[in-house]
């Protein structure tokens, strides 16, 4: 079984992304979640907050203005979906990945797409479920 898993191309790119997150991007508590019949997902803690919603930013600035205390933007656990550029992805498959994300309270609002190229570059993109207010660049 272990041999079979190691040979599986999807778990191979998953392993590549785990290494990249830990060693190049300094993520901590990185672990891989294998759901039954689902794409493996990586859960990890980035060194800093990846995404702040514009409304949250305004609230944080208001708080900073009224109290003079700057809110601490704690990093949050993120879910990473490792993919290969030659794969064909559809909206329904991405939706099923969102469905498969483990959650206790509210369901995950975003996942990080990690595309592994064979020159060892991993390109990361944030995927949000539904429409999200755009941020100022």
């Amino acid at each position: 079984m272990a041999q079979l898993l190691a040979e599986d191309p999807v778990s191979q790119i998953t392993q590549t992304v785990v290494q990249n997150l830990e060693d190049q991007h300094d993520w901590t508590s990185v672990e891989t979640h294998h759901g039954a019949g689902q794409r493996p997902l990586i859960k990890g803690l980035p060194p800093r907050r990846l995404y702040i919603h514009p409304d949250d930013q305004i609230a944080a600035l208001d708080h900073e203005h009224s109290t003079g205390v700057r809110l601490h933007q704690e990093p949050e656990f993120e879910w990473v979906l490792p993919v290969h550029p030659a794969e064909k992805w559809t909206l329904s498959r991405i939706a099923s990945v969102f469905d498969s994300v483990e959650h206790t309270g509210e369901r995950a609002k975003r996942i990080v797409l990690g595309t592994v190229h064979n020159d060892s570059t991993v390109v990361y993109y944030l995927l949000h479920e539904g429409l999200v207010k755009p941020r100022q660049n």
Partner: protein
Amino acid sequence: MAETSSPKPAMASANNNLATKRPLYEIYALPAPIKTFPLPSFYPSNPLSFIQLAYAWVGQVLSPPPAEPSIIHQGTWSAATTSVHIKDAQSMRALWEQGFYGKGSLSRSEPNWLRREEVRRGLQEGHVSEIHTVERREERIRAKWERARLEQEIIRQTREREARQAEKHRAVEDANTAPKAHIPTEPLAPVGPAEILALPNSAASNLGNGFVKDGPSHGESSDDYSKTNGTLDSSLESSDDTSSTEAPISTPVIPGLHHLKRQKSVRFSPTVASTTFDRTDPPSPGHSTGPKQNESAALGSQAGAGVLINKEHLQLMPEEALWLNFALGVLVVKDPRSGNPLSTRELLNLFRQHSVFPPLTGPDDPSPLPDDDFLLHYVVYHHFRSLGWVPRAGIKFGVDWLLYNKGPVFDHAEFGLLVIPSYSDPWWQSSGKRKPQKTWQWFHSILRVLSHVMKSMVLVYVDVPPPHKFEEALESGLADALKLYKVREIMVKRWSSNRNR
């Protein structure tokens, strides 16, 4: 031209004396991992140059140098990453410095993860581009936070001022109810001919003193119009407000964001500028400084105890590996299981099988056609490498290859290449093969991404030979098979009628 070689002591020491800064042209003196010893030129006008030429020639004839390539690098095929890994430190440096082959698996391009870790743990002084990038990004995050803060501040002040004005209006209303009872608080849509004539674009406004002429029936409503345009009529302002409106517009200079231009000039009180912002104050104090500060203590103790192991390898793309193995002959790729070196044909088959996901390695899987992804990309890679360009992977910009003139340390990539197969042979037409259908949106989005980073888009069409001709030529050698491919380039540039005159 005679080719000779000599051992390369410079490469071995390249990693050690990084502290003594060497100029780039010295580090990257060789454009390819082979050495050439050209004979000196002969100038008919200078007879002495003939003696020099003859001396060099005789010297090379009498003591012929050993055959090139003198150093053959060892790599290992890795099916998991579909690439060839180079683990030897000297080979990693040599392949990077002599032609920019491969990428450090944990770095942006140059393999310097070990140095980055050493600098971060305080074991070494130096400049590492990855650390520099992190610092620049942090400064950008801080600058954006500061910009958002200032914008919120401006919005808050505008609201306060509007609230004050509304109160004042109400007070004036209460004081003299009868004469000015009809002042509207909201700007009304102009309906009468006089009001329409009073609109800024009309002829009346050109004749008038201001750009808004007071409509006779609307009274102060014109002030509301002008306010929406950003100019405040100070006649309505009381004394406590004039100080803020007459203060010079102080555009806040945010470090790192000075190129982000403000859309409108909005006046705000000088007290905003006086609420000083410490540049070193990050949006998230505990984390944005990252491992440099947080982990340095922990890492330092670690480093004192043990030796830092280099987790990084140089990763060669299949195209680079085949070029180094087949075209230059400076690389031997070993099978990871048996440890035996793979022949060029074996490598070619392996790379072609792994050019799809999941790879077609099973015994029942169809054998790849001459238009498989690996061959198409290799043909383009071989073409541009032969012409002296440095092609590197372009996935970050959504293209197949980025084309560097000399190499990534010297300049930015000038071109982004998109590889498109062209089935011009009649065999393909009779077999019903169609070229890949790409949408206009795909094309346009890549073009705009590339133009944003000042690169030109090049469509590279590869004429694919029919399978029977290809297999026949492959029997006599890969070089013959590659000759059947043709490469055509078309450069695409967006033409904007306003800018390109």
